[in-house]
């Protein structure tokens, strides 16, 4: 009876009731009376019940405001999202059911606490958890907590295909694919507008050009990639490709060219290595002139365009009119001699040139790539710095190579190189090039085949189709030229 006494004493103290000393025996009698004991017990029971009810209410409120983490999903892809009740401190939660999952294509599997199924909607979706917690009365209504589930849209479905504006002064065809003979070899080239351009209706920045000069026996293939962040880069890439052909067709130094051919003949007769060295020097001098010619041609066009359309030159980041035309640039010249093929190349930017031997056992990368620390960082033919850089001497951008013959000569923009080779180191690996050829010949997700046969008149369409391969995160323009 001690707790009854204590209870009544503290009640009286709290209420200011004083039991005087001459009434202490009366008080002792009062607290042992059955109805006093019952009253105290009822009060304590009611108090406990009040506290329990509050605890439950409080806990439910906490659960309702708690963020329950459910992994994100993707529409159309099998989803398995585990709800870890233990980790989220929800062990006192008595699960009843979910409402609204079926509509999303999902269901809850009680055996492993997983939401599973294939989501049929995307967005910030909501469904409801119905639950009770330990200690709640049987007949209480279920508590309802709205949960959020993020279902991502299918990335492929987000891309739009907006045609480029044909009325634009510098409009360029979105996709071009072509095949032809080039000297004794054949060539197929496809250049296609990237997803990122399609998505906003902008233009293809890549370009290419090729030509066989019947008179001299030389052939040339050029590929260029206009910088996405500059507004006239598609013009820059176009001028670059056409200008280099113009140079070798109309502006090359005839005397130097003759000297070059004479030396080749005497090398052919004598196999004298010192003559070979001289040939290399001569070749590179000639290539250098070509690159200066290209640079100046773009520059002249930039100045001309500025005169007629100054409103196009409104980028505060550009330091000169030439900057608007920023484009990477590669080209390869090749000619068949008795002793084999002479291949001359130049490259600025991040587009590789490579040649595969006749036996298809070895592929050699013919240029080095300007790859920055970060994506997109590269160098352009439009930057005058490249001509007198000590860090990356211009001379190293040229290559001179003699091969007995070759099976394939490749030129491509980073739109192909990024998804297919990923990193520079892979361009040095012959097996990667063999995989690349296998891919072209049909070993790919869509089983698209490019048949490298001179009789194949469909090859341009085939390559064009192959170029449409899906690769997440790679949405640049794609240009691929193959001499075979």
């Amino acid at each position, binding site marked *: 009876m001690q707790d009854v006494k204590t209870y009544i004493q503290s009640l009286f103290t709290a209420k200011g009731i004083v039991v005087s000393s001459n009434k202490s025996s009366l008080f002792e009698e009062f607290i042992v009376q059955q109805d006093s004991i019952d009253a105290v017990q009822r009060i304590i029971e009611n108090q406990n019940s009040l506290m329990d009810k509050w605890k439950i209410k409080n806990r439910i409120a906490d659960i309702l405001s708690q963020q329950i983490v459910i992994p994100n999903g993707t529409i159309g892809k099998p989803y398995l999202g585990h709800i870890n009740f233990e980790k989220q401190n929800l062990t006192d939660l008595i699960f009843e059911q979910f409402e609204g999952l079926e509509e999303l294509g999902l269901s809850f599997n009680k055996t492993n606490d997983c939401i599973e199924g294939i989501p049929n909607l995307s967005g910030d979706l909501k469904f409801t958890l119905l639950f009770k917690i330990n200690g709640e009365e049987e007949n209480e209504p279920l508590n309802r907590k709205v949960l959020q589930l*993020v279902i991502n849209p299918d990335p492929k479905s987000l891309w739009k295909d907006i045609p480029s504006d044909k009325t634009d002064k510098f409009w360029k065809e979105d996709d071009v694919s072509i095949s032809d003979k080039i000297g004794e070899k054949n060539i197929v080239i496809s250049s296609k507008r990237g997803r990122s351009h399609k998505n906003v209706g902008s233009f293809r920045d890549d370009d290419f050009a090729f030509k066989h000069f019947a008179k001299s026996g030389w052939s040339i293939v050029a590929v260029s990639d206009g910088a996405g*962040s500059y507004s006239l880069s598609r013009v820059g890439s176009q001028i670059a490709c056409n200008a280099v052909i113009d140079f070798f067709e109309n502006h090359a130094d005839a005397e130097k060219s003759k000297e070059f051919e004479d030396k080749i003949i005497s090398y052919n007769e004598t196999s004298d290595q010192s003559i070979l060295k001289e040939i290399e020097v001569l070749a590179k001098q000639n290539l250098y002139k070509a690159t200066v010619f290209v640079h100046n041609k773009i520059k002249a066009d930039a100045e001309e365009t500025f005169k007629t359309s100054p409103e196009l030159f409104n980028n505060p980041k550009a330091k000169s009119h030439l900057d608007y035309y920023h484009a990477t640039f590669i080209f390869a010249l090749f000619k068949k001699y008795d002793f084999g093929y002479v291949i001359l190349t130049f490259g600025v930017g991040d587009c590789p040139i490579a040649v595969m031997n006749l036996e298809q056992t070895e592929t050699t990368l013919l240029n080095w790539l300007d790859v920055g620390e970060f994506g997109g960082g590269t160098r352009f033919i439009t930057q005058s710095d490249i001509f007198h850089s000590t860090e990356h001497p211009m001379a190293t951008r040229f290559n001179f190579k003699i091969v007995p013959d070759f099976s394939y000569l490749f030129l491509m923009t980073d739109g192909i190189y990024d998804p297919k080779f990923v990193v520079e180191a892979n361009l040095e690996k012959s097996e990667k090039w063999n995989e690349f050829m296998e891919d072209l010949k049909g070993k790919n997700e869509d089983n698209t085949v490019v048949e490298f046969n001179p009789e194949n008149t469909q090859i341009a369409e085939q390559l064009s189709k192959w170029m449409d391969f899906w690769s997440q995160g790679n949405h640049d323009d794609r240009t691929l030229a193959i001499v075979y």
Partner: protein
Amino acid sequence: MRRLPVYFLLDTSGSMNGEPIQALNNAMSGMINSLRSDAQASETLWISIITFDRVINEISPLTELPLFQLPEIICPPSGPTNTGKALELLYDKVSKEVKKGSPTQKGDWRPLLFIFTDGKPSDIQLYTEMIPKIKSLNFGSIVGCAAGALADNSKLKELADTVVHLDTADSSTLKQFFKWVSDTIEQGNKSMGTVDTVSLPSPPSEVHLVI
């Protein structure tokens, strides 16, 4: 695959308590939703969120957008704005997380930094020390956003290459601002020269560009 890493530094100091923090939560959530339906962002965007008040919290480590879940941003009822300390953590994170290109590794796109504050740094000495270090990380763009009358544009200007000022940190202004942020992010992966910064779209009328 190239990633586009985007870092958010958000002021959660005492003065943000109440309506501003609510508005910030709503605006961030709206921005994430709109990015989810952007084709490029859905494939390349990675997001990190760091909040700063007395303490610095990486409330969401760098996560690819499809897996990203926005946690609720909360702030204490009062306390200083340790922007310098936040930059210190940011420097550490970016140095470790952002991949640089090499012959055997694909480099990320240059990261972007958005820093949002309604006051000025309390740890001004550390803040000043961190600025050159943050700049050495070669961000594609650092955008500072000063919200409200008490926000200090000039301190932000020392760090950011673009500073915008919002008159108030209310829901509709923040929404406009973060809409612009998502437009900016969509600009973030294009090829450019090795030293250029990302060109930003022009901000909406609620957002004043500080020159």
